[in-house]
């Protein structure tokens, strides 16, 4: 019994002691999106940032909506997401200090090579969505309030479709991340909207391919914000701002542009574009 009790005391002690020790560590928590993680960008970028500043960035990869909620609860120092409307709402609530555009990539409409709805090569994404709906071809929706989900819902609207009303068994909202949605589409021969970065990095493509791309409406802008320290005093303001400043600096922007898979650039820096 003695050994067990001392084990308990040791474990409890370790639990309590290590908490403040970790808090002093030079690190920040960044709530970000599955697309930045699943595309491999952070794996490439964060070690470079750490080497430069000594700051460890701990990334929680969630959907944009969930990531912003993590910021709202004060559980993250920085949010790095991609849904401008949701980001502006976050700012207007006083949850964020300032929004900085960082980079963009674009969404692509993915589907099986057999392309049952015959949308391949369309340049008007709204028309492609309209066709998928008319043909009742299987479509996988993230259904998780992520940036990609928000973009998808907007495209249905652009196509003149009220998806809440018009959806049928062909439209499946799975409530999961980008990778899971691609896995589901691959397994069921369905269409799915993906960000290009995750798609390029995705390894289980099977017979899926890009069918529609290049429409301006498929533009995917990423922004970064410091969670408001006035609202959440525990926010590591200086370290968080240091991360943001580096991301939008010429050096950080260059690192983003340099991230390539098989020679393909995944993200395009645009911190200098005030309208982004």
């Amino acid at each position, binding site marked *: *019994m003695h050994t*067990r*009790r001392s*084990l*308990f005391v040791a*474990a*409890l002690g*370790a*639990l309590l002691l*290590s*908490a403040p020790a*970790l*808090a002093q560590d030079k690190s920040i*928590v960044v709530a970000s999106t*599955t697309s930045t*993680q*699943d595309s491999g960008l*952070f*794996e490439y970028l964060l070690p470079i940032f750490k080497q430069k500043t000594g700051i*460890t960035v*701990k*990334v*929680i*990869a969630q959907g944009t909506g969930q990531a912003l909620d993590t910021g709202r*609860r*004060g*559980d993250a120092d920085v949010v790095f997401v991609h849904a401008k409307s949701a980001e502006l709402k976050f700012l207007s609530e006083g949850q964020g200090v300032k929004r900085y555009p960082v980079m963009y990539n674009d969404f692509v409409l993915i589907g099986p090579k057999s392309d049952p709805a015959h949308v391949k090569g369309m340049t008007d994404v709204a028309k492609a969505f309209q066709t998928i709906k008319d043909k009742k071809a299987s479509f996988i929706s993230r259904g998780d309030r992520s940036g990609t989900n928000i973009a998808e819902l907007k495209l249905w609207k652009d196509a003149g479709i009220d998806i809440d009303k018009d959806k049928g068994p062909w439209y499946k909202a799975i409530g*999961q*991340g*980008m*990778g*899971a949605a*691609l*896995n589901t589409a*691959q397994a069921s021969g369905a269409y799915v909207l993906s960000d290009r970065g995750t798609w390029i*990095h*995705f*390894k*289980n*493509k099977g017979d899926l391919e890009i069918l529609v791309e290049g429409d301006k409406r498929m533009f995917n802008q990423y922004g970064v914000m410091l969670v408001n320290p006035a609202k*959440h005093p*525990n926010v590591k303001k200086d370290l968080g701002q240091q991360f943001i400043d580096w991301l939008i600096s010429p050096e950080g922007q260059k690192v983003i542009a340099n991230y390539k898979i098989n020679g393909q650039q995944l993200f395009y820096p645009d911190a200098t574009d005030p309208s982004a």
Partner: protein
Amino acid sequence: MPGDTSAFGLLLAGDPALLAIVRLSLAVSLSATALAAVIGIPLGAAVALTRFRGREGMIVFLNAMMGVPPVVIGLTVFLLLSRSGPLGSFGLLFTPQAMIVAQTIMVTPIIAALTRQTVEDLWAEYRDELTAMNVGPLRKIATLVWDARFSLVTTLLAGFGRAASEVGSIIIVGGNIEGFTRTMTTAIALETSKGDLSLAIGLGIVLIGIVVIINALAWVVRRAGEAYAG
């Protein structure tokens, strides 16, 4: 990632990132099982050996808690530890400590419920003897737990197995942060979401292998202990 990127290749090559993931998985699940044992074994034995109002309800409660979905425990702990939750000032959310807390809550009922059953069965054997010796309740609990120690190894393994295999609670309270709160199971979830199914299944097989090794070690310890104790 250059070279052999299969999970086995990485493990064999002593890939530091993968080893860190394995280490963290073991540290979290073993700590949680140890804490749960410290709470659950005395609790289970006490419920087995004492008579109090609401005891039946307590037994049903412990048994039912064995089946609570990890994701519900994760969400509850998340809300408690969030900066805007009641325990937010400790700053424990998204740390390994938070994962230990969640798994301890998950494993304690398993250990308590199984201990209660084991000790109650043993009590049927020892009742006359211990009653004749007129020992106090604490002494009684200690004696029976000590005598049941080899059976309790299996109880601990059941608890550890549940902790090591779950992903629902730790991915919520830990956040699956690379190099900090990423475990075997959350890494499997992540690799699946990246579509790297072969790495995911490889990690899964490595996890199974580690669990088998730990069970084998526990078995050896138990057999050696039994032989020693006669």
